[in-house]
């Protein structure tokens, strides 16, 4: 029999439970949300947030933190809505170059032993500046294929749900099941022993930063596909939302303890928290506050669960 009270299971169980409860309450308040279109509308905006959360989670796997996530996704959105639309080759080249920049940041942070918070803080100004240069005023246009993909309606299950599941599965395979993922998590857990085992830490850091950039680029693509145009400030909230999503999903700041599936669930929960309030007919003033409250409630639940688990062990 599966022991549901193991730490790893509990790590996923609580986020999943909170998402389910939130969803059930919304269905109760507004039964019409329980349809293909309703679900699609509820979760549409969660797709880019989920991708950004996975990107943040990758960085957090090696005990770093990316404070430039929001501005980077905004930058990508600006590139997608301009260059990728009018001159696809140049657009792809710019995006590829930004992945190289991210990998270089990983190397710089490792080689000079710099605090990632400060380096990414500096980068957030750089990405923000580039985004303003590309799009001084909101505008641009989503490439047609991207728009078509993001509004496509696969049979039975809405795209937003399929995408979320796909993101979770891919990230899970990458981080939890592949040998690369084990090394990367090992860097977060015990850097020295991974190094002594003969792995290159520099290469690991570069890899994880490049992977994070890749997921962040996907987030930018999804966002532009949904919003049809871009703006230099379009995704600024993603920095804090992505960190909150990872923690909500059971990840931790240190030790390489992360959960990709949890992170996606965390992102979905945070997105739902906003809609939840409008279903309760509470003023939109409190939308951000609701995300804060839900964070606190879920974390309180997690504490309670950990306590229960301890009691069971000692009993």
């Amino acid at each position, binding site marked *: 029999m599966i022991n549901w009270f193991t730490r790893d299971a509990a790590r996923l169980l609580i986020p999943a439970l909170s998402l389910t409860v939130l969803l059930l309450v919304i269905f109760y308040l507004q039964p019409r949300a329980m349809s293909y279109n309703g679900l699609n509308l509820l979760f549409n905006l969660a797709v880019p947030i989920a991708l950004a959360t996975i990107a943040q989670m990758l960085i957090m796997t090696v005990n770093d*933190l990316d*404070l430039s996530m929001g501005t980077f996704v905004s930058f990508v959105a600006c590139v997608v809505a301009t260059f990728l639309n009018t001159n696809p080759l140049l657009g792809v080249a710019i995006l590829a170059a930004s992945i190289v920049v991210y990998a270089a940041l990983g190397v*710089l942070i490792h080689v*000079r*032993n*710099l*605090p990632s*918070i*400060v*380096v990414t*803080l*500096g*980068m*957030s*100004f*750089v*990405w*923000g*500046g*580039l*985004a*303003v*240069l590309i799009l*001084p005023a909101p505008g641009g246009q989503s490439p047609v294929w991207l728009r078509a993909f993001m509004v496509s309606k696969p049979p039975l299950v809405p795209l937003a749900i399929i995408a979320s599941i796909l993101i979770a599965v891919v990230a899970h395979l990458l981080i939890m099941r592949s040998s690369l993922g084990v090394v990367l998590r090992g860097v977060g857990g015990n850097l020295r022993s991974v190094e002594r085992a003969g792995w290159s830490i520099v290469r690991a850091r570069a890899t994880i930063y490049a992977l994070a950039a890749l997921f962040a680029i996907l987030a930018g693509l999804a966002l532009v596909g949904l919003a049809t145009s871009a703006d230099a400030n379009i995704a600024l909230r993603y920095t*804090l939302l992505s*960190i*909150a999503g990872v*923690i909500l999903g059971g990840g*931790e*700041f*240190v030790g390489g303890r992360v959960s990709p599936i949890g992170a996606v669930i965390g992102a979905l929960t945070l997105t739902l928290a906003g809609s939840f309030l409008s279903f309760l007919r509470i*003023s939109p*003033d*409190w*939308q*951000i*506050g*609701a*995300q*804060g*409250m839900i*964070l*606190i409630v879920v*974390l*309180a639940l997690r*504490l309670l669960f950990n306590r229960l688990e301890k009691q069971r062990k000692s009993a």
Partner: protein
Amino acid sequence: MIVIKRLLHKPWIWSFVAAVTVWFVTIIFTGGASAFGLTQATLTFAAFSIIVGTGQMFVITLGPGNIDLSVPATMTLAGTVALKVMDGDNSMIVPGLLVAIAIGFAIGICNYGLIKLLRIPPIIATLSMSFIVQSTAIWTNRGLRIKPPAVLADFTISTTMGIPNVAWIALILTIIAYWLLQKTIYGRWVSAIGQSILAARMAGIPVDGVRIATYVLCALLASVCGFLLANFSGGAALNMGSEYLLMSIAVVVIGGTAVGGGDSNVPGIWGASLFMFLVVSMLNTYGFDAGIRLIMTGIIIIGVIVLAGGNNSEQR
């Protein structure tokens, strides 16, 4: 010579050297015409980041993972509510300030309450708190545009002995902070906890008491800064604190405070704050547009940390 050598070993000296350099580069461009105006503007605007930066510095000194993300929301809420209480009335200035301080106090207590009760990392606790505080600010500020009391507005934009009043306030607050940190048992406890929380606990330091006092102190400074900023800019805006989140962290780190905690640096906050504002005005003077300005700011932050980081590792 010995004095200079000694000075060069202080970690905060570099931020001042950088600030003075940028000051000269800017002045050279204008041919010395704006030297006085530039200095005054720099002191005024730097004062705000000095006040919030000092609070953030205490929190960061507590050790790895300690950071207060609720600073911008606290500033906004304190500024908004204080203006509402004062309602442009000169006789209500003291109650207004007290309300701002009370808000800071309450947010500080809540911040640490979350950290302690839920045992969550400070980043997430202060982040959740800031979401709630920001929402409260939106709710109170709805459609409001209240002018600050005339006396107070005048005070915040005028100068005493050629130096802006807000800079005087920042100076007094940082002197108190320096004294707290270097001369009192509380300050020694903060540094001790930052160096090793375990050892601090073993040594019988009241860890929880010190940490809660520090989070309250940070929120208090943020609320005072929000109060001043709202009066200075002639009204509270919902996004008035937003740039101070990254700024407060940046000035602490550039100022030579250890990111890992345990070693703080009050003079560095001044150097770094002056430097950050001067960089912006230098790039403005040279006629760069907003995008280039942001990029240069970012590159400079990274450049400083790469250089400073190198210094630290040599010392160790």
